C-alpha cells in the first residue's frame, strides 16, 4: 500500500501518519484517503475536485499542483506527500491552537 504524509498544518485532521492507501493513481489514492478521513477532502481538494490552488502533492518526489492531473501513477511502494504550496495565498495556513475546536476562557 502507498503511504501518505501530510503537512503539519493538517495534523488536526490527520492525527497519525503515514496513512496507508490503495489506488493506482493519485486520484484513486486520494479517494481512498477520503474514505478513511472524510473531513480532509475539502482541505485538499477544491469544490471542483482539483487540488486546491495552494496545495501541492509529491508522488515519489514528483510535484503535482492544482494545474496538474491527478491521474499520475501510484505504485504500492509509493510515498505521497500532501503539502501547502509555498506559492502565496492571501493568508497563512495556521492550525487552530492550542486545542482545536475548543474555545479558551481568559
Amino acid at each position, binding site marked *: 500500500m502507498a503511504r501518505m504524509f501530510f503537512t503539519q498544518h493538517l495534523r488536526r485532521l490527520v492525527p497519525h501518519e503515514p496513512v496507508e492507501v490503495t489506488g493506482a493513481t493519485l486520484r484513486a489514492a486520494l479517494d481512498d484517503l477520503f474514505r478513511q478521513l472524510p473531513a480532509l477532502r475539502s482541505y*485538499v481538494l477544491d469544490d471542483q475536485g482539483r487540488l486546491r490552488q495552494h496545495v501541492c502533492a509529491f508522488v515519489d518526489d514528483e510535484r503535482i499542483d492544482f494545474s496538474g492531473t491527478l491521474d499520475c501513477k501510484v505504485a504500492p511502494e509509493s510515498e505521497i506527500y500532501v503539502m501547502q504550496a509555498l506559492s502565496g495565498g492571501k493568508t497563512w495556513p495556521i492550525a487552530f491552537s492550542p486545542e482545536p475546536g475548543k474555545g*479558551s*476562557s481568559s
Partner: protein
Amino acid sequence: MANRILAGTRKGLFILKPDGRGWTVERTAFLGSPVPAVLHDGRDGTLYASLDLGHFGGKLHRSDDFGESWQEVAAPAYPKAGEGTDGDSLKLLWTLEAGGPGQKGTLWAGTIPGGLFVSRDRGETWALNEPLWNVPERARWFGGGYDKPGIHSVLVDPRDENRITVGVSCGGVWLTEDGGRSWEIRTRGMRAPYMPPDLAEDGAIQDPHRVVQCPGKPEGYWIQHHGGIFRSTDDLENWQDVPSMGPSIFGFAVAVHPKDPETAWFAPAIKDEFRYPVDGKFVVTRTRDGGRTTQVLSDGLPQASSYDLVYRHGLDVDETGDGLAMGSTSGGVWTSADAGDSWTLLPDRLPPVYAVRFTTA
C-alpha cells in the same frame, strides 16, 4: 440589551463582555486563523464562525454553547462544472445572516466568487441560489479588492422574510421579493466614478462596499459605496447621493440606527488609493438628518498618527441605537455608549479586525 461583542479578526474570534467600565475579552476561538464572518443566531442561540484558512479554503464552524465548543459543518460549495470547463470554488465565506423568524435553521451566506448560498438545516448542507447566479448581468460583475466579485451584505427584510437585499462588490444591489426565485437590480441613482463616464451608471458594476437597512423603518437603506455615500428612503426604488460628509465620503463601513433611518454612522478614510484616516486623525461621521448635516466624532479616537481603516463589517450599532462598536485594521476596538459622541478603546490589542457584531449571550 446587547451584552456581548463578537469580533472576527485576522487571528481568531474574540468574544467581548462588559466589565463595568468598558469591555473585556471573555473568550477566544480559532486563534491563529482568520475569521471573516461571525453570526449569533438569535432564533436558536447558535453561534457560527466562518474561517478563511488560506491554502486550505473557507470553512464554517458552529457552536451550540456560545463558543465553549465548536463543530465544523459544511461550507458552501460551488456546483461541479461540466467536463472540460473551469468551474468555481469557494474563496471566502464573507457574510452570514439568519433567515426570517419563521424560518428556524435557515441561513444565508454571501461568498466570493459571487455566489449566494442558503442552508435550511443550520449549515449542514448548502445550495447555491441559482437564479441570482444566472442573472445575465453577472457577466459584468468584477472583483473589488479580491480577484473575483463577492457578496458582503445580505439583508432579510423584517417585514417579509422572502424579501432579501444583497450587496455585491462589484455587482450592484439586488432584490428578491419571492425568497430568491427571481432578482431585480436596484441601483437607480448610483454612480461609479471609477468607470468610464458612459458606464458610470451601469447598475451591474456598482461597488456598494456595505449595504444596511433600518430595522424599524425598513424602507430606509444606506450604502457606503466605493464612490461615496448613498441612501434610499423608498424601498430601493431610488438612491440619493450624499455629496459631502465630514473629512471624506470614502470608506467601507456604515451602520444605521435601528429605529431612525435618518441616523447613520460612517468611518471615513482618504479615498481609494490611500485608505487611511484623513491627516492621520481617526473619526466617525454621523448624520441625524439623512445626510443634510454631519457630526464629526473624535472624542476618544486617536487624533494623530492613526492609520486605522475600518473594514465593511467592522462597525455595528446595538438595538438601542446608542451602543456602537468599531474595529480597525490596526487591531483597535472602540466602543461608544452615547451614539458615538465619545469612544472608549478596548485595552487589549487585537489582531486586525474584520467584523464586529453586537449580540446578547
